[in-house]
């Protein structure tokens, strides 16, 4: 009988790094990835395998080339299943996957699992964020990397964080610079945080390259600027913006929004120290620190797992130090760009799946339980299961949305036909 594999969920930098590290230690690995190629959002390649012309930092290219070479070298121990969606863990402890290629659900009882499901973007809601034409900055970046082409027509980029200038520079280089970049934060009012940021050893060169690109294309980058509303306008959007105390309206085709990232943890099983099947989280899905840290964190999770399985392991000090550097940088960045939450207008959609508004949320008791929020408020009850409204509700209520326990499967809608063709691994 063949050895029971270790499951790695997610083929981004954390998952790929964990899988390579485990396979190099001689263990069989099953690596599942929802897309048709590995890489995650950061290393998304152009569709059809053609050379991508979207500009990106050299170190990301080098890191990914090195990781794929390691996976290649250990190919006899790594089974890669692409277009395979992780559905969760059933009551018997089986990990369920939807293989979209074959239209079949399969179950595995692994020896251990590392879940590297990445991050999701957070947004701060305003009336109209739910309209067609409004997309996340990260979503637009993935599309740009895949197609090599920017969206046609005027683009406005708004929200907060370093992804705003990064994508805006990529759009400019690809031929359609945004009409403006609106950063909610006011970093010049935070001189101490700015000083700490400058000393944090973060990717300052990268930031300078983006700033230079935006300047060369005359893209205004405004701080203390927010989107207040969006409305349909012929085949585009009419977007209300506020810069300081001045209000304006812009007509654009695309509004790209982003206010940071959070670990994608909705429905993800939690690691328990005494579990017979150890589960570890890795990468942005454990702690949202970005791609460089995710690669280190994937390796760290693999080394910790090897230790738990009784293998002698190398020291983990370099990885721990790298993670701490990323954490310091993110903390300084968050302080520099900090802005107080704004209470949205009552009609603002909070739950897009079920069409629930901020007024509906306010109707719930302050101490409403997860069950009440879901069953009475209908928040987090729709197809996304609260992955998007959850962080918004937590921010607006000032405390985390209570999790449903145990996490329920399926994490994603799955066809009954695929479930009916369930195959259970015969190595059990």
């Amino acid at each position, binding site marked *: 009988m063949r050895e029971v594999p270790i499951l790695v969920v997610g083929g981004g930098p954390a998952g790929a790094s964990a899988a390579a590290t485990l396979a190099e230690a001689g263990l069989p690995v099953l690596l599942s990835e929802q897309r048709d190629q590995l890489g995650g959002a950061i290393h998304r390649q152009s569709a059809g395998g053609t050379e991508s012309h979207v500009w990106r930092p050299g170190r990301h290219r080098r890191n990914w080339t090195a990781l794929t070479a390691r996976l290649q070298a250990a190919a006899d121990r790594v089974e890669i299943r692409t277009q395979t969606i992780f559905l969760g863990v059933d009551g018997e402890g089986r990990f369920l996957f939807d293989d979209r290629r074959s239209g079949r659900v399969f179950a595995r009882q692994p020896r251990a699992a590392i879940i590297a499901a990445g991050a*999701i973007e957070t947004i701060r809601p305003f009336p109209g964020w739910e309209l067609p034409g409004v997309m996340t900055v990260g979503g637009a970046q993935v599309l740009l990397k895949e197609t090599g082409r920017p969206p046609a027509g005027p683009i406005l980029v708004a929200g907060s964080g370093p992804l705003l200038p990064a994508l805006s520079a990529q759009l400019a280089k690809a031929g359609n610079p945004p009409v403006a970049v609106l950063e909610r934060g006011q970093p010049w009012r935070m001189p101490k945080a700015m000083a700490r940021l400058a000393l944090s050893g973060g990717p300052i060169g990268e930031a300078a390259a983006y700033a230079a690109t935006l300047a060369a294309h005359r893209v205004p980058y405004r701080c203390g600027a927010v989107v207040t509303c969006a409305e349909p306008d012929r085949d585009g959007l009419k977007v209300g913006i506020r810069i300081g105390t001045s209000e304006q309206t812009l007509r654009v085709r695309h509004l790209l929004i982003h206010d940071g990232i959070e670990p994608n943890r909705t429905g993800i099983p939690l690691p328990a120290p005494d579990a017979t099947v150890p589960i570890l989280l890795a990468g942005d899905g454990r702690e949202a620190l970005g791609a460089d840290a995710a690669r280190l964190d994937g390796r760290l999770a693999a080394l910790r797992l090897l230790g738990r399985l009784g293998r002698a392991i190398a020291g983990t000090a370099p990885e721990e130090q790298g993670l701490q550097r990323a954490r310091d940088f993110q903390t300084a960045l968050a302080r520099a760009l900090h802005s107080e939450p704004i209470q949205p207008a009552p009609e603002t959609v909070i739950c897009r799946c079920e069409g629930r508004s901020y007024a509906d949320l306010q109707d719930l008791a302050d101490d409403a339980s997860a069950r009440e929020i879901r069953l009475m408020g209908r928040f987090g009850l729709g197809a996304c299961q609260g992955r998007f409204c959850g962080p918004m509700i937590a921010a607006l209520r000032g405390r985390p949305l209570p999790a449903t326990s145990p996490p329920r499967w399926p994490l994603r809608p799955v066809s009954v036909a695929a479930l009916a063709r369930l195959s259970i691994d015969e190595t059990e």
Partner: protein
Amino acid sequence: MNGHFFWNGAPVAFRPGETIAAALLRAGVADLGQPHEAPGGRVFCGIGACQGCVVAVANAAPVEACLTPAREGLRLGPLPAIGADHA
């Protein structure tokens, strides 16, 4: 361009390896329908998390447009209104 699928019966061209979402957006299709009493579908997060771009597929289960490679001849449309089958 290498192939076509259909959105509401109209042909949409796609390049090899491209997702349904990428092809629809290039064709200018941003609004992916208007289910009953809820905001309409649209590509939003690009990573399968928000479920905003789930589209109906003829003779198959709905899929996230942003995750799913386009295939020749697929017949796609907006998700039916909730409860429409039971009206």
